[in-house]
């Protein structure tokens, strides 16, 4: 079965080509069939390959398939080679499977849009690029996928381009991530210059053998790669693009800006974990970025009024958890949280999309309310998603993945109580904003009418994802609770294991985490369901009001960046609009013209002037000769 690996990215890519070339001539049904079907078959192939991988794994733990030689100059020999190990298999599975569900959902969600074919073309190109990213065997091919998903993100955020605000959000997303990508590109130059290859596995082996732990080159290379990861995964300081990216259609937010693309940074770090292991300082930076991001984004999520922006900040915050895990060396925990997050966050976005479309594209949560009875399927699935996000104990997947990260943050040698505490406070915030959303949107009085009930192609993905948001947690349970290690066993061939804390400590940590989550739930209950007027009263206080504004604007990063970077560039561009160098040439031309003007006045054509000239000249010459 492994030989079919190439079809996984090839199928969506083919569908993209067909839709891009002939999309305008295809009917909507045909476009949907192509768009959804191609990803569906990819998912099926992934499942087949996955079963074989589980049943009879390749001897070295990885299977690679070379398609063709891309570039060969000197010792730069990147081939288009797909590399399948446990890590990329996990990513591929999530991308194709969640991608398929979201495509299916979108076929109904987008049914009324005139540019149906363009939508599916972009989505398919995204899936293909994302698959190239995770299956790439060398960093250059990874970079191809990396930029490809950025392009698709740009295309899809700006899908409704007639509103300039959407188009601008798209540009912002592309640009901010490109800044990170540039750092990453320089990282690639450095790695190639020092280690002479870009193929990931030999590169890692070479790095481990040439660079001692803490070597300057390793730190520089890891820091530059981190730049790329931070941009793509919307972490501090390049997180500003993600909330604006919600301008895209909701399935796009679910697929690209929640489940897959934004976790590419997590994947990159996990993929090059050997390099990061050699640079402990960068590891600490990763953890610190993660911890800080998860707190700032969590607080921002608490005050948003747009349902999609709440989820966007929540995504930033949850990826912060993954970075925290990566930073403390808990690679497997990060990937576990990636998987559960992909399920429950995609679920939340899709359910939110169902709400939005039912209410005629209303996104303000304060205009919703009481939807529990009106949209039961949406409510229950959203509730499961939110519970999983909040880490409601024992039954939800989010509980197990977040708990693993917290335990690791406590015990790991690069971690410590501070990182643990940040994660814990984040867990409290997560529960608070998740249930704030539930209480405001689904409880209380109904404020609007439901125009439209989601059909089967929208509800089925919700149900499947809801099921996954629960059961996917049971593949890895801590020692004190059930002790299942299927996930870590599976990833063990690709990522180093993480150490579990002692049973007593572990039980205590779990207890505290549960308490934090429940406390968050309780706070949300009291503030947003029982006494909503209290929130209003608090937010009227002057200090609270300015804090509210700060959180609402995402800590004012947009304004800061505008002042620091955008405005100076605009200023320089404006003053240099006419090209100063050109002005210098124009000045010399002007000078010549001036001299010319002066000299030509002497050529008047008047004989008398010439005579006078001769006379004056003679006098001068005679004067010079006689007196000189």
């Amino acid at each position, binding site marked *: 079965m492994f030989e079919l690996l190439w079809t996984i990215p090839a199928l969506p890519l083919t569908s993209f080509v067909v839709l891009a070339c002939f999309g305008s001539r295809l009917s909507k049904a045909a476009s949907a069939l192509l768009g959804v079907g191609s990803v569906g078959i990819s998912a099926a192939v992934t499942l087949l390959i996955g079963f074989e991988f589980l049943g009879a794994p390749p001897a070295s733990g990885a299977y690679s398939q070379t398609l063709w030689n891309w570039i060969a100059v000197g010792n730069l020999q990147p081939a288009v080679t797909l590399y399948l190990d446990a890590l990329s298999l996990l990513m591929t599975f999530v991308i194709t499977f969640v991608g398929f569900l979201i495509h299916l959902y979108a076929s109904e969600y987008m049914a009324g849009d005139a540019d149906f074919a363009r939508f599916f073309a972009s989505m398919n190109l995204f899936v293909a690029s994302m698959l190239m990213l995770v299956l790439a065997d060398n960093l250059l091919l990874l970079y191809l996928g990396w930029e490809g998903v950025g392009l698709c993100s740009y295309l899809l955020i700006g899908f409704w381009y007639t509103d300039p605000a959407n188009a601008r959000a798209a540009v912002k997303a592309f640009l901010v991530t490109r800044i990170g990508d540039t750092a990453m590109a320089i990282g690639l130059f450095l790695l190639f210059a020092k280690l002479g290859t870009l193929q990931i596995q030999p590169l890692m082996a070479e790095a481990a053998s040439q660079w001692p732990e803490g070597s300057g080159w390793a730190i520089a290379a890891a820091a530059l790669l981190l730049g790329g990861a931070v941009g793509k995964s919307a972490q501090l300081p390049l997180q500003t693009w993600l909330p604006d990216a919600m301008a895209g259609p909701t399935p796009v937010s679910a697929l690209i800006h929640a489940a897959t693309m934004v976790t590419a940074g997590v994947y990159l770090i996990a993929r090059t974990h050997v390099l990061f292991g050699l640079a402990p300082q960068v590891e600490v930076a990763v953890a610190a970025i993660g911890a800080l991001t998860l707190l700032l984004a969590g607080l921002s999520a608490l005050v948003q009024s747009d349902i999609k922006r709440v989820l966007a900040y929540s995504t930033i915050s949850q990826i912060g958890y993954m970075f925290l895990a990566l930073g403390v060396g808990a690679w497997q925990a990060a990937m576990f949280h990636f998987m559960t997050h992909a399920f429950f966050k995609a679920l939340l976005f899709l359910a939110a999309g169902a709400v939005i479309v039912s209410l005629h594209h209303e996104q303000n949560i304060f205009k919703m309310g009481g939807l529990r009875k009106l949209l039961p399927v949406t409510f229950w699935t959203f509730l499961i998603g939110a519970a999983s996000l909040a880490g409601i104990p024992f039954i939800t997947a989010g509980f197990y993945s977040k708990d693993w990260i917290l335990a690791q943050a406590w015990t790991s040698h690069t971690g410590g109580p501070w990182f643990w505490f940040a994660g814990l406070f984040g867990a409290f915030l997560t529960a608070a904003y998740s249930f704030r959303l539930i209480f405001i949107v689904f409880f209380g009085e109904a404020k609007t009418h439901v125009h439209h009930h989601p059909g089967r192609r929208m509800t089925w993905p919700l149900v499947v994802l809801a099921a996954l948001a629960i059961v996917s947690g049971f593949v890895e349970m801590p020692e004190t609770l059930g002790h299942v290690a299927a996930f870590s066993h599976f990833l063990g061939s690709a990522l180093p294991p993480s150490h579990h804390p002692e049973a007593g400590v572990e039980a205590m940590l779990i207890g505290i985490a549960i308490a934090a989550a429940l406390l968050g739930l309780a706070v949300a209950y009291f503030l947003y369901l029982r006494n909503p007027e209290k929130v209003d009263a608090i937010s009227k206080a002057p200090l609270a009001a300015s804090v509210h504004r700060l959180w609402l604007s995402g800590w004012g990063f947009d304004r800061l960046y505008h002042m620091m970077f955008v405005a100076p560039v605009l200023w320089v561009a404006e003053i240099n609009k006419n090209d100063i160098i050109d002005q210098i040439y124009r000045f010399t031309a002007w000078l010549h013209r001036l001299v010319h003007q002066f000299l*030509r006045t002497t*050529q*008047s*054509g*008047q*004989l*008398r002037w010439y*005579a*006078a000239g001769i*006379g004056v000249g003679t006098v001068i010459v005679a004067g010079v000769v006689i007196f000189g």
Partner: protein
Amino acid sequence: MIPTEHGLMLAAVLFVIGLAGVIVRRNLLFVLMSIEIMLNAAGLAFIVAGARWAQPDGQVMFLFILVTAAAEVAVGLALLLLLHRRFKTLDTAAASTMRG
């Protein structure tokens, strides 16, 4: 005997008068007459110089100038007549068609 300086001074004054006439007057007839004055000023200078060193060369040169002046007047008057016929004026500025 008249000192050489006086004779040369007179020649210079006459020359400058002629030059001023060439520059200032617009009427071509006066320009021609001014040129005559300048030529004669040069001739006078030769005569004075010839007298100073008691040589015949000065007078020979004066005869040359006389002939040249006569030829110049002949050509100049012919041109002047043509000009008058064509432009109905003797103003030099009117004939200045070569101005670029």
